[in-house]
């Protein structure tokens, strides 16, 4: 008899952890993409100062460990600004911003990938900068961006596992609990790993389907 065997209730725990992981991933993805879109607008309209700030912040986020970002937000912000911070809020904030930093770069290069001639042509016809963005750049940039974006999100899904370190009860944290209780590391971490793997594959296949559809509507495939 081991220290404490697996019980059926462990499945409930795992399901809860999975729910937290999926929930937080979905939330941070939506918020992150929204922020990235705002960043992209600021960049597109060349808003002075703000643009430099955004570029600097996103470079810092891309080039430092997410774990350090989590510590900065979870331990640093409350101590410095004397505010309250729950693990969940800190995690959501950090992962959202991190996703935003990477997505911003993807969006920007998506827009850059649209040929300059098209933009010039649109200008000649007297379209405003907004109209050019809305009708010329966005549809094509979306098609260019979706592939890298799916790759990013598959990666971000795995990044969410780090929030367990600041005490969010996500899938990895549940793994930690079960691991300590059952002392069956191989079983626990294999199951947890497989769940992440399945999520990643699901995400990738949904992404591939969306990419196919977007590309079909943008790329002219001949008669």
């Amino acid at each position: 008899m081991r220290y404490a065997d697996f019980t059926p209730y462990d499945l409930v725990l795992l399901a809860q952890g999975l729910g937290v992981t999926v929930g937080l991933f979905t939330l941070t993805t939506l918020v992150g993409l929204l922020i990235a879109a705002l960043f992209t607008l600021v960049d597109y309209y060349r808003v002075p100062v703000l643009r430099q700030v955004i570029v600097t912040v996103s470079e810092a986020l891309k080039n430092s460990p997410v774990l350090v970002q989590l510590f900065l937000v979870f331990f640093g912000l409350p101590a410095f600004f004397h505010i309250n911070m729950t693990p969940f809020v800190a995690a959501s904030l950090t992962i959202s911003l991190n996703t935003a930093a990477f997505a911003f770069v993807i969006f920007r290069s998506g827009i850059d990938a649209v040929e300059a001639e098209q933009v010039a042509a649109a200008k000649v016809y007297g379209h405003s900068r907004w109209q050019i963005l809305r009708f010329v750049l966005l549809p094509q940039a979306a098609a260019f961006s979706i592939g890298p974006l799916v790759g990013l999100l598959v990666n971000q899904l795995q990044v969410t596992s780090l929030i367990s370190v600041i005490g969010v009860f996500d899938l990895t944290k549940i793994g930690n609990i079960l691991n300590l209780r059952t002392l069956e590391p191989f079983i626990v971490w294999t199951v947890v790993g497989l769940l992440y793997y399945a999520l990643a594959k699901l995400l990738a296949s949904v992404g591939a389907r969306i990419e196919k559809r977007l590309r079909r509507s943008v790329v002219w495939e001949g008669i």
Partner: protein
Amino acid sequence: MNQLWVTLRPHLPFMLDGFLLTVFACTLAIIGAVLIGALMASLRTSGNRIVRGVAFAYSDVFRNTPFIVQLFFFFYGLPEIGIYIGAFETGVIALSIIGGAFVSDVIRSGILAVDQGVIEAAKVSGLSRWTIFTKIVLPIALRTSVRPMGSVLINMVLTSSILSTITINELTGTAKIVASTTFKPFEVYLVLLVLYASLTYALSLLINTVHRRLNRAMDTGGAA
């Protein structure tokens, strides 16, 4: 600002130790990753379907699961099967393994991108498969892979911070201790963030230099 310096200064030697440990761990892991990656990439060109499948599964599994889960798998699992190695060794091995998965993909795409015509020229001149691989395919693939390989290595450095979760006092580990002893988590983690960003920036400069050096003479874009 001065106040911060006074607070942090006594802890700098300790953090320098952490920094050096990060550099040491990453150096070892990068060597390991490149070796594993090269091996896996060549296995993926094997004639045997099972060997190919295993090499593919390796990169697929380790790329699609979180590093921290892999790390715990080894850290808590290895002693269970009677392998008692230190946390540092475990960390370096885990980092090499995930790095190897990414490196293997980079090398593989580098190899696939080598101009087929160039390989044909080597074949008809009677060179052996081995010579073609080591003298033509690999050197060309290495040159085109510098940048993607660079991002993998930078990612490994960032990922190494997770080693702090298994009691390794590398840079992030020491910072954690300093943050709690000085009660200045914001300042300490901000400095830490800047340190990592500078480290990866320096690495990216190095990578660009290597890329330019290696490709100065060579046009890898195609035949003509």
